[in-house]
């Protein structure tokens, strides 16, 4: 999968949930959205990217992906 596209998708999801002032809730929202709507191969790739680099992910998105990695 095109990792740039996955990064953009993840950051776009982050932009929506970032409106939430409770950042822990926002992070959970991002994680759950990805968990419930992304095919596992897409999740594996974004987790892999996050673990190896992750610099292009917005802060709260990186937190959510880290959380996703732990729960996978």
């Amino acid at each position, binding site marked *: *999968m095109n990792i740039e596209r996955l990064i953009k998708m993840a950051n776009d999801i982050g932009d929506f949930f*970032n409106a939430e*002032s409770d950042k822990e809730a926002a992070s959970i929202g991002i994680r759950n959205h990805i968990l419930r*709507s992304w*095919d596992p191969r897409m999740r594996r790739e974004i987790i892999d990217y996050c673990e190896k680099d992750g610099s292009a992910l917005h802060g709260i998105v990186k937190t959510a992906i880290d959380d996703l990695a732990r729960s996978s």
Partner: protein
Amino acid sequence: MSMNKEQDFGTPARNASTLVNLEIDGFQVTAPVGTSVMRAAASIGIDIPKLCATDSVEPFGSCRLCVVQIEGARGMPASCTTPVAEGMKVVTQNKKLADVRRGIMELYISDHPLDCLTCSANGDCELQDMAGAVGLREVRYNPQGQNHLNAVKDESNPYFSFDPSKCIVCSRCVRACEETQGTFALTIDGRGFDSKVSPGQNEAFMDSECVSCGACVQACPTATLMEKSVIEHGQPEHAVVTTCAYCGVGCSFRAEMKGDQVIRMVPHKDGKANHGHSCVKGRFAFGYATHKDRITQPMIRKSIKDPWQEVSWEEAINYAASELKRIQASYGIGAIGGITSSRCTNEETYLVQKLVRAGFGNNNVDTCARVCHSPTGYGLKQTFGESSGTQNFDSVMKADVIMVIGANPTDGHPVFGSLMKKRLRQGSKLVVIDPRGIDLVKTPHVKADYHLKLRPGTNVALINAIAHVVVTDNLVDHDFVHQRCETAAFEKWKTFIADPRHAPEATEAVTGVPAEDVRAAARLYATGANSAIYYGLGVTEHSQGSTTVIGIANLAMATGNLGREGVGVNPLRGQNNVQGSCDMGSFPHEFPGYRHVSDTETRTLFENDWNVILESEPGLRIPNMFDAASDGTFKGLYVEGEDIAQSDPDIQHVHHALREMECVIVQDLFLNETAKFAHVFLPGSSFLEKNGTFTNAERRISPVRKVMKPLGGYEDWEITQLLSNAMGYPMNYSHPSEIMDEIARLTPSFASVSYEKIDSLGSVQWPCNDETPDGTPTMHEQSFMRPSGKGLFMLTEYVATQERTTRMFPLILTTGRILSQYNVGAQTRRTENVAWHSEDRLEIHPHDAEDRGIVDNDWVGIKSRSGETVLRALISERVQPGVVYTTFHFPESGANVITTDNSDWATNCPEYKVTAVQVAKVSQSSEWQQKYEAFSQQQLELLEQGSHHA
């Protein structure tokens, strides 16, 4: 089978609860107040002769044929314009009345061609019927006298002819155009003997404002306005009630047949979505079903560079299945998937998703709603708990304020557009939120109170600004919010939306909409007794499509405009079965009824019924499939009824993905654009060739009934079943009703739906179960569908799209559709509808055109970051400066060469509505268009080389 002609009661029904009792010809009758004597008589089987009256338009009282005598009343009143009254005693037949009627008919016939035996209306002519009914035996007037018998025919419309020599000037056509359609294209020109029906200013029909809806033809009592198909083939001999296969209105039609040939499609008076009205597509554009381009033999080929080879069904199905199995063995179980379409029936989409989940063993199934209304599904599910609109269409007739956002009902949903215009003519207020000046902004007897002409891509900022005014002006319906919504979420939203950054004055710089207009529109919406929102793809097809849907839901909840007639949140679905295809579990993360695949209870239910272990992880969405194909992990695709190679964004990326696949199976009517990349072609069946159901934008499940045999031999659901069996997953349905029974068994909102019920009620709106056995016209009346029963406010921060204008790409391109064409045009391009729209054009504002030296009809190149195409320019003030617009009905236009891969954050619905472009005058087609033409030509030659299609 027979024609089962629909009864004409002469005047429209009245819905008053107060009833009156009267006597007609000695019989007691009870009728609602306001009912005409004519209708009351018809209700007990007494047909009073009539010509100018028909129950689709208000009574007019001009022909005087329907005169009656009423005890105690003077003279002979017209029964069509005389309302019933308590104790009234009416006589409809006596010698005096008969003499008057015969005299009237004699006058009519004195100026009418006496060519009944060769007339196209012979057998279906009210004038002929009335002559018989009144016992006309002679015409005493001199046939050489002044008359209209030599009036010239107007044959300009491709579907109907206008023969004024047969016109009796009853005004039914004029009134139908006004009352039913709301176009006001017809008038009676001249006075007295010179009176005549005139399209526009004495123009030909095709040169007038006529939109060819057919209402005038249907209303005409003679052969004056007549379908050319009837003139050519004669009167139909039987009729079958079915549902239109075009837009999300889902009009009910009588397919009037002669043998297995459709003579005409006539809108069904009892159709609850359309009440006997139609548009140019559903009424006339059915000829594609028997077009010479139909492919009726299965075909296969190893490579897309090979000629097609016609094979038997068995060989095609076995080849397709073996290829899919080979791919799974080589690349993994998730390397294949399926795409279904909103042009398919519920039963077909259900079977495709079942084939993928149970037969392919993964969840890689998606539908074209991905690229149109998937944000509706997400946004309304989150806030209201159900992925659907809240009302029926008739609800608009009780709306006091109508807000239309990113929708163009008169073009995209014309029959509902006419109903909306009827309500607007009654005085309902109108707010239009759209970058373009759509027809509704100013059309005969309708003018928008506010047209908020926002910049494309700023919907969320504008909806937030409206909500800000509602909250800060204290216009919130606190009772509704307190009783019906989650309090903590509302309080959080209230604080969020009241922030000054959402004030109209702050958002004006972003949206371009003057703050005072936003404030006024917000107050109008919030203070209307009943305010209803109708929205379309101008809301969903954005990077923040889901956010806008959520914002709209917030607005409706905050103002209490939910849970009753006249209000609500109403997504106008693009294609006929968008709602249904989503309901049927076509999304990769949801089973039928919008239940997540990870939900163990639901999965177990399906596993037990389908006798298979199901995948608990979501599958690939359509754009993800393309990415995975380009990445080499997705190699096989089964596409039923969808043309992804034309309709999806960033088309060069889509074409690359299709080329990378090893087995693309296309099931369709024609060698569409996707089929040019295919290895297996399975001939599909049109809506006339199969049984099933469609679910329209108001959740109405309506019957689709077979009126002719499938040209390819099988109905689409049968083909999916063959493929499933060949894949090793057994399916053994003998009729689609059995598929619906299974859907009902497994889907709580469909629990009481059956073909028997649909046939008895005509149609039914889900939820339809034990609690609501006759369906649900209005959703969320007592509580929302969320687990808590409460509505959920969500925060909707505006995030600008990443598609920005620059010096290189200074204009914003937005796309849409036109009345006469439908989606990718595969159907309507193969009909006479091309007479209205034969090519996609680029609408550009005069200022932008002048800056670039462009005049009308110039060829212009439109270049974006994704690609370039060339169209002819149409200079138009419908678009604002800085914005250009085109339709996408012709593949060679390449509208989706330009669109980008930006998509909605929640659902990946493409951002079709915002693409930064530059426009310049050019002298030749684009490089892409030249390549497309060469490729397309090559594929047509490969078709010719290998097949002998019908």
